[in-house]
């Protein structure tokens, strides 16, 4: 039963093996993005200290973070039972904070709250303050059956008999009135939410649903305290709830009695065995359907809440803003997590340089502007990709001169194939002014964005950064803005990871009347030319030419080789600033420069072309768009 995901040995090291089992359940549920998402995970992090292993996690529909830490194991009736404390750290702005204890609420507003959560295993009080329930994981010593259970109160309530006064503006105010609640936390629903995701993950890993279920409720208690005494008293409206699931063929009843304790009188009990109808209270839980996720290729995915369409990200940004740099980071990040990205690019210029920079399957659509020439082609490119691969993400990288608004019709046309995720626009913090004042399309790109990356922040002054921020905020007040250097931004900050974002960015936020207009784009007088270079060029001559360029040349990129260093170099030029670096694949044969400028043809093209080794491409792209 276990062998696909657990190879530990419960007989030799009980504490170690039961933690190893939880680790295996948690970790293996993260591998496949669609399954991970469908199971309800929204992020997981291992917290290791020398003493115990713990985890922090986010799950669907909860803004806060859950903390799990091992709390010991015992051996009984042929079972090894591990107990794990579950804590819930609500987000600082979450309404749930009001129902935490005052002390926990105070903690949640500390500036270092998030790092306290990350390191909660180093602060025992964090576990106690935010404790919400206990999880039990048990494995029989034959390793043939598994038990997963939880224990929680419908509410954790503490009453401050004498109330609590806190100093405020020189006087004292009642934070809790006498006899009021210090804490009244809805523990059961929070604990159950996490238990559901964990149990679904166990079903998923075992590839089978539980065959045994129990729920037993006992009368609950609340705590009443003052400065002298603390008492537990019966609370008529609070219940203690224990739930357990059994997998495989084990003596679950005996195990459960151990956990529930003898001599207590329950209020009620639900008991279910594999052949009965599932109790209605539990019929909707994911742990019944999760086993099918492993064979989801053949299943009705909609019924399981799986959207098979990969998310589509539109990546825009004006010429030279740093789209490719961002894409490189994005791809590496996903690759390290074993995810597969398909990139669709359309480059201005005859040669798709960016395709050569990326170790990825790249389908380059017709060159030229997406909005002008893509009609029908995006769908074809997507169909081709989807029939050959199952990418986890698809990125459509538009040319720097494209207006993303013109893509929206196309996106609607491919909604059956992909799930539109967001439009991310990379903005060049250094050359923003120039772009905005000369090119309406640069404005449109910012306007269309759900996410704005203000890039090259390392090259801009503080004052100009602030100004740039203001400018883009004026154009687009709704988008998330991130400051980046060299396009380096953790992709999960912006893409897909969370439902909250999905809700916010469900579709491009523009109305239909705007759609009918063909938005302005490259007809701002931009042109593009490709210069082919045969052999190597003189470094000094080349660089002095480059330095003499006027502002009418906006962007150059390509591959050159100098007489003094016979290796292909990547040349990147944006508005007066340039960079030379070794081209990653030394075997590349092409030597070329793609030049984009505005207005009258600059002399550089002719100057470069007049050097014997450089020939001007015959098919000049005066239209560039």
């Amino acid at each position, binding site marked *: 039963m276990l062998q696909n995901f657990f190879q530990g040995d419960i007989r030799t090291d009980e504490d170690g093996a039961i933690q190893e089992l939880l680790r295996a359940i948690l970790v293996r549920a993260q*591998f496949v993005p669609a399954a991970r998402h469908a199971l309800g995970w929204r992020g997981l*992090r291992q917290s290791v200290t020398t003493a115990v292993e713990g985890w922090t996690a986010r799950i669907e529909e909860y803004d806060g973070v859950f903390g799990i830490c091992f709390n010991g194991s015992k051996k009984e009736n042929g079972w090894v039972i591990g107990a794990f404390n579950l804590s819930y750290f609500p987000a600082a702005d979450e309404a749930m904070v009001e129902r935490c204890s005052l002390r926990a609420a105070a903690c949640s507003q500390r500036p270092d709250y998030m790092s306290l959560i990350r390191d909660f295993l180093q602060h025992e009080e964090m576990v106690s303050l935010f404790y919400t329930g206990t999880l039990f994981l048990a494995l029989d010593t034959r390793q043939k059956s598994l038990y997963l259970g939880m224990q929680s109160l419908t509410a954790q309530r503490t009453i401050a008999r004498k109330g*609590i006064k806190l*100093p405020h503006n020189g006087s004292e105010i009642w934070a809790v009135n006498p006899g009021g609640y210090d804490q009244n936390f809805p523990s059961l629903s929070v604990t159950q939410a996490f238990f559901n995701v964990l149990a679904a993950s166990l079903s998923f890993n075992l590839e089978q649903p539980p065959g045994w279920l129990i729920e037993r409720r006992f009368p609950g208690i609340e705590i009443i305290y003052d400065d002298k005494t603390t008492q537990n008293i019966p609370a008529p409206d609070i219940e203690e709830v224990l739930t357990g699931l059994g997998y495989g063929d084990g003596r679950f009843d005996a195990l459960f009695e151990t956990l529930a304790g003898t001599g207590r009188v329950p209020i009620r009990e639900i008991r279910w065995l594999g052949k009965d109808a599932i109790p209605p209270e539990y019929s909707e839980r994911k742990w019944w359907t999760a086993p099918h996720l492993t064979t989801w290729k053949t299943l009705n995915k909609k019924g399981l809440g799986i959207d098979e369409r990969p998310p589509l990200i539109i990546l825009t940004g004006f010429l030279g803003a740093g789209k490719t740099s961002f894409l490189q980071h994005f791809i590496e990040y996903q690759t390290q997590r074993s995810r597969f990205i398909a990139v669709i690019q359309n480059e201005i210029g005859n040669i798709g340089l960016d395709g050569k920079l990326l170790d990825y399957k790249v389908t380059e659509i017709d060159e030229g502007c997406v909005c002008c020439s893509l009609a029908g082609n995006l769908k074809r490119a997507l169909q081709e990709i989807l029939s050959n691969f199952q990418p986890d993400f698809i990125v459509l990288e538009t040319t720097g001169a494209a207006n993303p608004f013109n893509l929206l019709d196309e996106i609607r046309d491919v909604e059956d194939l992909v799930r539109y995720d967001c439009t991310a626009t990379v903005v060049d913090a250094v050359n923003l002014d120039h772009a905005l004042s000369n090119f309406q399309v640069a404005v449109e790109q910012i306007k269309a964005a759900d996410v704005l990356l203000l890039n090259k922040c390392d090259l801009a002054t503080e004052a100009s950064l602030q100004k740039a921020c203001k400018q883009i905020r004026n154009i687009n007040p709704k988008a998330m803005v991130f400051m980046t250097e060299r396009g380096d931004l*953790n992709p999960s900050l912006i893409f897909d990871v969370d439902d909250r974002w999905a809700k916010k960015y469900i579709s491009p936020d523009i109305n239909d009347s705007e759609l009918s207009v063909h938005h302005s784009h490259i007809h701002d007088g931009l042109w593009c030319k490709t210069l082919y270079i045969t052999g190597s060029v003189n470094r000094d001559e080349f660089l002095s030419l480059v330095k003499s360029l006027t502002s009418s040349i906006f962007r150059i990129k390509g591959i050159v080789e100098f007489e003094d260093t016979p290796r292909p170099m990547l040349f990147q030029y944006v508005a007066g600033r340039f960079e030379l670096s070794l081209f990653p694949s030394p075997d590349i044969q092409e030597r070329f420069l793609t030049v984009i400028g505005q207005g009258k043809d600059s002399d550089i093209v002719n100057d470069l072309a007049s050097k014997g080794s450089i020939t001007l491409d015959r098919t000049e792209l005066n239209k560039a768009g």
Partner: protein
Amino acid sequence: MSEDKGQFSRRDFFKGAAMGVLGGTALGMGLFSYSPWRKAYFPEVKRKMVDIGVCKSVKVTNISETSWFKNAVLMSDIKAAGGLLVNQYTYNWPPFGDGTGLGKGSYENGIAKIKHLLPNNLEEAWRVTEKLSVSPDNAGGFAALIEVEEMSGRKHKFLLDSGWSYKWMDESFKREGIDQMLRNNEIEAFIISHEHFDHFWGIPVVFKYNPNITTYYPQGLYPEGLQYLKDAGHKGKLIQVKSGALNPIVPGFATYNFPVPIICRVYGEQSIYANVKDHGLVSITGCCHFGIIQFSETAFREIAYEKNQLYGIYGGLHISPFEDWDPKYDDLVISLGKYGYQKIGCNHCTGVLCAKKFIERGYPVQKGTARFRSPDPAYLGNGDKIGFGIEV
């Protein structure tokens, strides 16, 4: 403060308090109490400080870190074969191709085509499998030579992993002289980090030159892997390294198996710790699937090492195998910054941009030469060497 009918808002109150005059004093002055529902108790675990001895120096030669040549090919194969949870032996990759196509293979059917050729006729075996397998040209492999010098000056050589492609690995072995070292019994043990295709499937290339070599494998190897060790012609001593326990091999040199599920149905990864005199602990890893933090914390918990210093690290550094819940947090900083590693040689699954970030942040990354199909000098690439306690 909240204007909600004079309701006391805890969030508003403490938000102000945290930044204003009150600071954290309300808590400290005991102005209000709280009664914990459950007092957490963390067992006090003492560092075990196991003495694994000490060595004079460790030298690592990167035989190959290029596990595959095209990531796009690899990932699309995995995807099309059923995904990351699927048993790797079913992919129909070399050397276990049986001609039935992607995702339809099995160990038994694959090995049947080449078993008679292992380990002595690998050229022919590879020719056979090239025809029957999916994406045979994409196979590369990961392997490293580790040279440990005892305080007495006595030297030991170990081989970490065998790579994947028979062809590529044989070339790589010859390039670094590993074939001769194996033949001459200079390499005293072969250490298998984990069962992944790119680390493990090239084992016949090792056994071709020395079938009697002592071999350490991690607990968690699946039955196919154990059978492959036999079918590939291994005749020597076979030692299982148990999870969660140090496995000392020579003074100052031990391995440790981390029990963790890994993609493509693999379980557990064995890594190496070396305690270098006057320098500190050196960690050598295949992929570090368990994460660099656990690697470092385990070292701290288990081992006594020189100067209490985590000194060096070599190999593929999986920073985080899955998605963190807080993307704003930069694992890079805590993982390598926090532990204060003084010499880093990284490659394989680290990510070139990630390696470049280490360099940008001023971490002591030893650069490579980007030869023999290694992608970038930020990696300690194929044919490059790194020394700990010794200059190379």
